[in-house]
Protein backbone atom coordinates (compact mmCIF):
# COMPACT_ATOMS: atom_id res chain seq x y z
CA UNK A 1 0.00 0.00 0.00
CA UNK A 2 1.25 3.45 -0.93
CA UNK A 3 0.40 6.54 1.05
CA UNK A 4 -2.47 8.34 -0.74
CA UNK A 5 -0.77 11.66 -0.09
CA UNK A 6 2.23 10.55 -2.11
CA UNK A 7 -0.09 9.68 -4.99
CA UNK A 8 -1.80 13.06 -4.75
CA UNK A 9 1.56 14.81 -4.80
CA UNK A 10 2.50 12.91 -7.94
CA UNK A 11 -0.78 13.94 -9.56
CA UNK A 12 -0.06 17.59 -8.82
CA UNK A 13 2.53 17.44 -11.59
CA UNK A 14 0.06 16.04 -14.15
CA UNK A 15 -0.86 19.06 -16.26
CA UNK A 16 -3.85 19.61 -18.50
CA UNK A 17 -2.50 19.54 -22.09
CA UNK A 18 -4.73 22.49 -23.10
CA UNK A 19 -4.11 24.60 -19.98
CA UNK A 20 -0.54 23.64 -19.10
CA UNK A 21 -0.41 25.63 -15.84
CA UNK A 22 -3.21 23.64 -14.20
CA UNK A 23 -2.77 20.18 -12.78
CA UNK A 24 -5.53 17.59 -12.65
CA UNK A 25 -5.69 18.33 -8.92
CA UNK A 26 -6.10 22.10 -9.48
CA UNK A 27 -8.93 21.38 -11.91
CA UNK A 28 -10.65 19.07 -9.44
CA UNK A 29 -10.70 16.26 -11.99
CA UNK A 30 -9.50 13.58 -9.59
CA UNK A 31 -12.54 12.51 -7.59
CA UNK A 32 -11.10 9.56 -5.67
CA UNK A 33 -7.95 7.52 -5.28
CA UNK A 34 -8.13 4.03 -3.77
CA UNK A 35 -6.06 0.88 -3.78
CA UNK A 36 -7.35 -2.63 -4.24
CA UNK A 37 -4.73 -5.37 -4.01
CA UNK A 38 -1.78 -4.26 -6.15
CA UNK A 39 -3.80 -1.84 -8.28
CA UNK A 40 -4.28 1.89 -7.87
CA UNK A 41 -7.72 3.08 -8.91
CA UNK A 42 -8.34 6.71 -9.84
CA UNK A 43 -11.81 8.15 -10.47
CA UNK A 44 -11.54 10.95 -13.01
CA UNK A 45 -14.36 13.31 -13.95
CA UNK A 46 -14.37 14.39 -17.61
CA UNK A 47 -14.62 18.16 -18.05
CA UNK A 48 -16.66 18.35 -21.25
CA UNK A 49 -18.34 15.27 -22.70
CA UNK A 50 -16.39 15.54 -25.94
CA UNK A 51 -13.16 16.96 -24.54
CA UNK A 52 -10.36 15.50 -26.71
CA UNK A 53 -7.82 16.10 -23.93
CA UNK A 54 -9.34 13.41 -21.68
CA UNK A 55 -7.49 10.51 -23.28
CA UNK A 56 -4.17 12.33 -22.88
CA UNK A 57 -5.01 13.18 -19.27
CA UNK A 58 -5.78 9.52 -18.50
CA UNK A 59 -2.48 8.44 -20.07
CA UNK A 60 -0.53 11.07 -18.13
CA UNK A 61 -2.11 10.00 -14.85
CA UNK A 62 -1.11 6.40 -15.52
CA UNK A 63 2.46 7.38 -16.37
CA UNK A 64 2.85 9.60 -13.31
CA UNK A 65 1.68 6.81 -10.99
CA UNK A 66 3.78 4.12 -12.66
CA UNK A 67 6.47 4.20 -9.93
CA UNK A 68 3.77 3.27 -7.39
CA UNK A 69 2.03 0.52 -9.29
CA UNK A 70 -0.40 -0.21 -12.09
CA UNK A 71 -3.22 2.29 -12.34
CA UNK A 72 -6.79 1.76 -13.46
CA UNK A 73 -8.71 4.88 -14.48
CA UNK A 74 -12.47 5.15 -14.09
CA UNK A 75 -14.28 7.93 -15.90
CA UNK A 76 -17.11 9.06 -13.62
CA UNK A 77 -19.80 11.48 -14.79
CA UNK A 78 -21.92 11.52 -11.64
CA UNK A 79 -21.86 14.10 -10.17
CA UNK A 80 -20.91 16.07 -13.29
CA UNK A 81 -17.67 18.03 -13.16
CA UNK A 82 -18.06 21.71 -12.37
CA UNK A 83 -15.66 24.66 -12.29
CA UNK A 84 -16.70 25.00 -8.62
CA UNK A 85 -14.22 22.17 -7.97
CA UNK A 86 -11.30 24.20 -9.28
CA UNK A 87 -9.01 25.18 -6.41
CA UNK A 88 -8.40 28.84 -5.49
CA UNK A 89 -4.70 28.32 -6.19
CA UNK A 90 -5.69 26.97 -9.61
CA UNK A 91 -7.77 30.07 -10.36
CA UNK A 92 -4.83 32.33 -9.48
CA UNK A 93 -2.48 30.33 -11.72
CA UNK A 94 -5.02 30.57 -14.52
CA UNK A 95 -5.23 34.36 -14.32
CA UNK A 96 -1.44 34.69 -14.14
CA UNK A 97 -1.25 32.57 -17.31
CA UNK A 98 -3.57 35.02 -19.12
CA UNK A 99 -6.86 33.13 -18.91
CA UNK A 100 -9.65 34.74 -16.89
CA UNK A 101 -10.85 32.23 -14.26
CA UNK A 102 -14.56 31.29 -13.93
CA UNK A 103 -16.65 33.97 -12.22
CA UNK A 104 -19.14 32.92 -9.54
CA UNK A 105 -20.63 29.52 -8.81
CA UNK A 106 -21.91 27.10 -11.41
CA UNK A 107 -24.55 25.66 -9.10
CA UNK A 108 -27.33 27.86 -10.46
CA UNK A 109 -26.19 27.66 -14.07
CA UNK A 110 -28.90 25.31 -15.29
CA UNK A 111 -31.04 28.12 -16.54
CA UNK A 112 -31.43 29.05 -20.17
CA UNK A 113 -30.01 32.39 -21.24
CA UNK A 114 -28.53 33.39 -17.93
CA UNK A 115 -26.98 36.90 -18.00
CA UNK A 116 -23.26 36.89 -18.71
CA UNK A 117 -20.93 37.67 -15.79
CA UNK A 118 -18.50 40.59 -15.36
CA UNK A 119 -15.23 39.06 -16.48
CA UNK A 120 -11.99 40.72 -15.41
CA UNK A 121 -9.23 41.21 -17.97
CA UNK A 122 -6.29 39.01 -16.85
CA UNK A 123 -3.85 41.57 -18.29
CA UNK A 124 -4.94 45.02 -17.00
CA UNK A 125 -7.61 43.81 -14.48
CA UNK A 126 -10.28 46.06 -16.00
CA UNK A 127 -13.85 44.80 -15.70
CA UNK A 128 -14.92 46.63 -18.85
CA UNK A 129 -14.78 43.60 -21.11
CA UNK A 130 -16.96 42.28 -23.94
CA UNK A 131 -17.90 38.77 -24.91
CA UNK A 132 -16.66 38.14 -28.47
CA UNK A 133 -17.76 34.52 -28.77
CA UNK A 134 -19.28 32.01 -26.35
CA UNK A 135 -16.97 29.35 -27.75
CA UNK A 136 -13.23 29.90 -27.64
CA UNK A 137 -10.09 27.96 -28.48
CA UNK A 138 -11.34 24.93 -26.52
CA UNK A 139 -14.79 23.80 -25.38
CA UNK A 140 -14.18 25.08 -21.85
CA UNK A 141 -13.40 28.67 -22.84
CA UNK A 142 -15.16 31.75 -24.22
CA UNK A 143 -13.45 34.55 -26.08
CA UNK A 144 -13.49 38.06 -24.57
CA UNK A 145 -11.92 41.39 -25.37
CA UNK A 146 -10.90 44.11 -22.93
CA UNK A 147 -12.27 47.58 -23.72
CA UNK A 148 -9.45 49.30 -21.86
CA UNK A 149 -6.30 47.56 -23.06
CA UNK A 150 -7.95 46.06 -26.18
CA UNK A 151 -6.37 42.69 -25.48
CA UNK A 152 -8.42 39.68 -26.57
CA UNK A 153 -8.34 36.89 -23.99
CA UNK A 154 -9.80 33.52 -23.07
CA UNK A 155 -12.29 33.16 -20.24
CA UNK A 156 -12.64 29.78 -18.54
CA UNK A 157 -16.42 29.36 -18.57
CA UNK A 158 -18.32 28.94 -15.35
CA UNK A 159 -19.69 25.44 -15.90
Amino acid sequence: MVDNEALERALESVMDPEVPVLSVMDLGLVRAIYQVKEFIHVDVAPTYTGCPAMDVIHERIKVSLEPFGETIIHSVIDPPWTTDWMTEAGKKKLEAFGIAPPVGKASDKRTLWAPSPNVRCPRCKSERTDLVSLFGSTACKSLYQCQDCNEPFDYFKCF
Partner: protein
Amino acid sequence: MKWDTCDPKTAYVLHLADDALILGQRLAEWCGHGPILEQDIALTNISLDLIGLARQYYQYAAELMGEGCTENDLAYHRDSRAFMNHLICEQPNGHWGDTLARQFYFDTFHFFQLEALAQSSDERLRHIAAKAIKETSYHAQYSAEWIIRLGDGTEESHAKIAQSLRHFAPFAHEFFVASEVDRAAAEADFGPKVSDLSSSWEEKVNAILQLATLDPVDLGFPKKGGKAGLHSEHHGYLLAEMQSLARAYPDASW
Protein backbone atom coordinates in the same frame (compact mmCIF):
# COMPACT_ATOMS: atom_id res chain seq x y z
CA MET B 1 -25.75 -7.66 -34.78
CA LYS B 2 -29.46 -7.41 -34.16
CA TRP B 3 -30.15 -3.72 -33.65
CA ASP B 4 -33.43 -3.84 -35.49
CA THR B 5 -34.89 -6.11 -32.82
CA CYS B 6 -33.44 -4.51 -29.72
CA ASP B 7 -35.46 -3.91 -26.56
CA PRO B 8 -37.29 -0.59 -26.00
CA LYS B 9 -34.64 0.90 -23.74
CA THR B 10 -31.77 0.16 -26.12
CA ALA B 11 -33.82 1.52 -29.02
CA TYR B 12 -34.50 4.70 -27.08
CA VAL B 13 -30.84 5.19 -26.17
CA LEU B 14 -29.92 4.66 -29.83
CA HIS B 15 -32.49 7.27 -30.85
CA LEU B 16 -30.85 9.80 -28.48
CA ALA B 17 -27.38 8.84 -29.69
CA ASP B 18 -28.32 9.11 -33.37
CA ASP B 19 -29.65 12.66 -32.95
CA ALA B 20 -26.39 13.76 -31.35
CA LEU B 21 -24.13 11.97 -33.83
CA ILE B 22 -25.93 13.01 -37.02
CA LEU B 23 -26.25 16.67 -36.05
CA GLY B 24 -22.66 16.63 -34.75
CA GLN B 25 -21.49 15.29 -38.12
CA ARG B 26 -23.47 17.96 -39.99
CA LEU B 27 -21.95 20.73 -37.89
CA ALA B 28 -18.48 19.27 -38.39
CA GLU B 29 -18.93 19.97 -42.11
CA TRP B 30 -18.57 23.66 -41.23
CA CYS B 31 -15.01 23.07 -40.06
CA GLY B 32 -12.83 25.35 -42.17
CA HIS B 33 -15.88 26.93 -43.87
CA GLY B 34 -17.25 29.29 -41.19
CA PRO B 35 -17.76 32.94 -42.18
CA ILE B 36 -15.15 34.03 -39.64
CA LEU B 37 -12.79 32.09 -37.41
CA GLU B 38 -14.75 32.57 -34.15
CA GLN B 39 -17.98 31.23 -35.66
CA ASP B 40 -16.20 28.34 -37.34
CA ILE B 41 -14.79 27.43 -33.93
CA ALA B 42 -18.16 27.85 -32.23
CA LEU B 43 -19.96 25.41 -34.53
CA THR B 44 -17.21 22.83 -34.30
CA ASN B 45 -17.20 23.21 -30.49
CA ILE B 46 -20.90 22.38 -30.50
CA SER B 47 -20.21 19.52 -32.89
CA LEU B 48 -17.59 18.16 -30.50
CA ASP B 49 -19.99 18.33 -27.55
CA LEU B 50 -22.65 16.49 -29.54
CA ILE B 51 -20.29 13.76 -30.72
CA GLY B 52 -19.03 13.36 -27.15
CA LEU B 53 -22.62 13.00 -26.01
CA ALA B 54 -23.31 10.50 -28.79
CA ARG B 55 -20.40 8.41 -27.50
CA GLN B 56 -21.87 8.37 -23.98
CA TYR B 57 -25.17 7.07 -25.35
CA TYR B 58 -23.60 4.56 -27.78
CA GLN B 59 -21.36 3.15 -25.05
CA TYR B 60 -24.45 2.64 -22.91
CA ALA B 61 -26.41 1.11 -25.81
CA ALA B 62 -23.50 -1.21 -26.57
CA GLU B 63 -23.45 -2.38 -22.94
CA LEU B 64 -27.20 -3.00 -23.07
CA MET B 65 -26.82 -5.00 -26.28
CA GLY B 66 -23.95 -7.11 -24.93
CA GLU B 67 -22.40 -9.81 -27.13
CA GLY B 68 -19.25 -7.73 -27.59
CA CYS B 69 -21.10 -4.88 -29.32
CA THR B 70 -19.09 -1.62 -29.32
CA GLU B 71 -19.87 2.07 -29.78
CA ASN B 72 -18.10 1.92 -33.15
CA ASP B 73 -20.36 -0.90 -34.37
CA LEU B 74 -23.35 1.26 -33.59
CA ALA B 75 -22.03 4.46 -35.15
CA TYR B 76 -20.32 3.02 -38.22
CA HIS B 77 -21.93 -0.29 -39.09
CA ARG B 78 -25.63 0.42 -39.12
CA ASP B 79 -27.49 1.41 -42.29
CA SER B 80 -29.77 4.39 -42.72
CA ARG B 81 -32.94 2.45 -41.86
CA ALA B 82 -31.52 1.51 -38.45
CA PHE B 83 -30.89 5.17 -37.48
CA MET B 84 -33.64 6.83 -35.44
CA ASN B 85 -32.58 10.49 -35.48
CA HIS B 86 -35.07 13.29 -36.11
CA LEU B 87 -35.16 14.34 -39.78
CA ILE B 88 -34.09 17.87 -38.83
CA CYS B 89 -30.65 16.61 -37.72
CA GLU B 90 -29.74 15.25 -41.13
CA GLN B 91 -30.92 18.24 -43.19
CA PRO B 92 -28.11 19.93 -45.15
CA ASN B 93 -26.35 22.94 -43.66
CA GLY B 94 -27.53 25.34 -46.38
CA HIS B 95 -26.42 28.89 -45.68
CA TRP B 96 -25.47 30.31 -42.28
CA GLY B 97 -29.07 31.20 -41.41
CA ASP B 98 -30.29 27.71 -42.33
CA THR B 99 -27.71 26.11 -40.02
CA LEU B 100 -28.59 28.47 -37.17
CA ALA B 101 -32.37 28.07 -37.61
CA ARG B 102 -31.96 24.27 -37.50
CA GLN B 103 -29.68 24.58 -34.48
CA PHE B 104 -31.99 26.99 -32.63
CA TYR B 105 -34.98 24.66 -32.94
CA PHE B 106 -32.91 21.62 -31.98
CA ASP B 107 -30.97 23.19 -29.08
CA THR B 108 -34.14 24.51 -27.48
CA PHE B 109 -35.79 21.09 -27.78
CA HIS B 110 -32.61 19.36 -26.60
CA PHE B 111 -32.48 21.51 -23.48
CA PHE B 112 -36.03 20.59 -22.41
CA GLN B 113 -35.50 16.96 -23.41
CA LEU B 114 -32.39 16.74 -21.19
CA GLU B 115 -34.18 18.51 -18.37
CA ALA B 116 -36.80 15.74 -18.52
CA LEU B 117 -34.16 13.00 -18.89
CA ALA B 118 -32.47 14.28 -15.73
CA GLN B 119 -35.62 12.87 -14.02
CA SER B 120 -35.53 9.56 -15.92
CA SER B 121 -36.22 6.29 -14.10
CA ASP B 122 -32.94 5.09 -15.62
CA GLU B 123 -29.92 6.08 -13.54
CA ARG B 124 -27.41 6.13 -16.39
CA LEU B 125 -29.63 8.38 -18.53
CA ARG B 126 -30.07 10.69 -15.54
CA HIS B 127 -26.31 11.02 -15.16
CA ILE B 128 -25.66 11.60 -18.86
CA ALA B 129 -28.42 14.22 -19.04
CA ALA B 130 -27.25 16.08 -15.93
CA LYS B 131 -23.86 16.48 -17.55
CA ALA B 132 -25.05 17.30 -21.08
CA ILE B 133 -27.57 19.94 -20.05
CA LYS B 134 -24.75 22.22 -18.92
CA GLU B 135 -23.20 22.11 -22.37
CA THR B 136 -26.56 22.37 -24.12
CA SER B 137 -27.53 25.55 -22.30
CA TYR B 138 -24.49 27.20 -23.92
CA HIS B 139 -25.51 25.86 -27.34
CA ALA B 140 -29.05 27.16 -26.90
CA GLN B 141 -27.82 30.56 -25.82
CA TYR B 142 -25.51 30.76 -28.81
CA SER B 143 -28.07 29.81 -31.45
CA ALA B 144 -30.75 32.07 -29.90
CA GLU B 145 -28.37 35.02 -30.00
CA TRP B 146 -27.81 34.43 -33.69
CA ILE B 147 -31.54 34.30 -34.40
CA ILE B 148 -31.90 37.68 -32.67
CA ARG B 149 -28.93 39.13 -34.50
CA LEU B 150 -30.15 37.98 -37.92
CA GLY B 151 -33.85 38.73 -37.35
CA ASP B 152 -33.18 42.16 -35.90
CA GLY B 153 -30.41 42.84 -38.40
CA THR B 154 -30.75 44.09 -41.95
CA GLU B 155 -33.73 43.71 -44.26
CA GLU B 156 -31.91 40.94 -46.09
CA SER B 157 -30.82 39.00 -42.98
CA HIS B 158 -34.36 39.31 -41.60
CA ALA B 159 -35.93 37.92 -44.79
CA LYS B 160 -33.41 35.09 -45.02
CA ILE B 161 -33.69 33.92 -41.40
CA ALA B 162 -37.50 34.14 -41.58
CA GLN B 163 -37.40 31.84 -44.62
CA SER B 164 -34.98 29.41 -42.88
CA LEU B 165 -37.18 29.28 -39.77
CA ARG B 166 -40.29 28.59 -41.88
CA HIS B 167 -38.44 25.86 -43.74
CA PHE B 168 -37.41 23.97 -40.60
CA ALA B 169 -40.64 24.42 -38.61
CA PRO B 170 -42.40 21.29 -39.99
CA PHE B 171 -39.22 19.33 -39.20
CA ALA B 172 -39.27 20.69 -35.64
CA HIS B 173 -42.84 19.42 -35.41
CA GLU B 174 -41.43 15.86 -35.44
CA PHE B 175 -39.96 16.49 -31.95
CA PHE B 176 -43.45 16.39 -30.50
CA VAL B 177 -45.00 13.54 -32.50
CA ALA B 178 -44.27 10.37 -30.53
CA SER B 179 -42.72 7.39 -32.32
CA GLU B 180 -43.22 3.83 -31.04
CA VAL B 181 -39.83 4.13 -29.36
CA ASP B 182 -40.83 7.41 -27.66
CA ARG B 183 -44.10 5.88 -26.46
CA ALA B 184 -42.40 2.83 -24.98
CA ALA B 185 -39.87 5.10 -23.24
CA ALA B 186 -42.60 7.29 -21.76
CA GLU B 187 -44.57 4.25 -20.58
CA ALA B 188 -41.55 2.84 -18.76
CA ASP B 189 -40.71 6.34 -17.50
CA PHE B 190 -37.16 6.42 -18.78
CA GLY B 191 -38.01 9.13 -21.31
CA PRO B 192 -40.48 12.03 -21.35
CA LYS B 193 -43.81 12.09 -23.14
CA VAL B 194 -42.63 14.17 -26.10
CA SER B 195 -45.92 16.02 -26.55
CA ASP B 196 -45.43 17.41 -23.03
CA LEU B 197 -42.30 19.24 -24.16
CA SER B 198 -44.01 21.30 -26.86
CA SER B 199 -45.42 24.08 -24.70
CA SER B 200 -42.09 24.96 -23.02
CA TRP B 201 -40.40 24.74 -26.41
CA GLU B 202 -42.90 27.03 -28.14
CA GLU B 203 -42.84 29.51 -25.30
CA LYS B 204 -39.04 29.81 -25.36
CA VAL B 205 -38.80 29.84 -29.15
CA ASN B 206 -41.48 32.52 -29.47
CA ALA B 207 -39.89 34.69 -26.79
CA ILE B 208 -36.67 34.72 -28.83
CA LEU B 209 -38.51 35.24 -32.13
CA GLN B 210 -40.25 38.25 -30.64
CA LEU B 211 -36.90 39.77 -29.60
CA ALA B 212 -35.72 39.06 -33.13
CA THR B 213 -38.74 40.95 -34.57
CA LEU B 214 -39.83 37.71 -36.30
CA ASP B 215 -43.26 36.06 -36.50
CA PRO B 216 -44.15 33.35 -33.96
CA VAL B 217 -43.41 29.80 -35.05
CA ASP B 218 -46.01 27.92 -37.09
CA LEU B 219 -45.15 24.23 -36.94
CA GLY B 220 -47.41 23.31 -39.85
CA PHE B 221 -47.90 19.72 -40.96
CA PRO B 222 -45.14 17.55 -39.45
CA LYS B 223 -42.36 16.20 -41.63
CA LYS B 224 -41.69 12.98 -39.77
CA GLY B 225 -40.41 9.45 -40.12
CA GLY B 226 -36.80 9.81 -38.99
CA LYS B 227 -37.48 8.31 -35.58
CA ALA B 228 -38.89 5.23 -37.30
CA GLY B 229 -35.87 4.91 -39.60
CA LEU B 230 -37.50 6.54 -42.64
CA HIS B 231 -35.00 9.18 -43.68
CA SER B 232 -34.56 11.80 -46.35
CA GLU B 233 -32.15 11.22 -49.23
CA HIS B 234 -29.54 13.38 -47.46
CA HIS B 235 -29.09 10.77 -44.73
CA GLY B 236 -27.48 8.20 -47.02
CA TYR B 237 -24.90 10.66 -48.30
CA LEU B 238 -24.04 11.73 -44.78
CA LEU B 239 -23.54 8.12 -43.66
CA ALA B 240 -21.55 7.28 -46.78
CA GLU B 241 -19.01 9.94 -45.90
CA MET B 242 -19.01 9.36 -42.14
CA GLN B 243 -18.80 5.56 -42.30
CA SER B 244 -16.53 5.04 -45.31
CA LEU B 245 -13.27 4.61 -43.43
CA ALA B 246 -14.66 2.27 -40.78
CA ARG B 247 -16.35 0.14 -43.44
CA ALA B 248 -13.37 0.00 -45.82
CA TYR B 249 -11.02 -0.94 -42.98
CA PRO B 250 -13.18 -2.70 -40.39
CA ASP B 251 -10.29 -3.24 -37.99
CA ALA B 252 -8.99 0.30 -38.18
CA SER B 253 -8.32 1.96 -34.88
CA TRP B 254 -7.45 5.59 -34.21
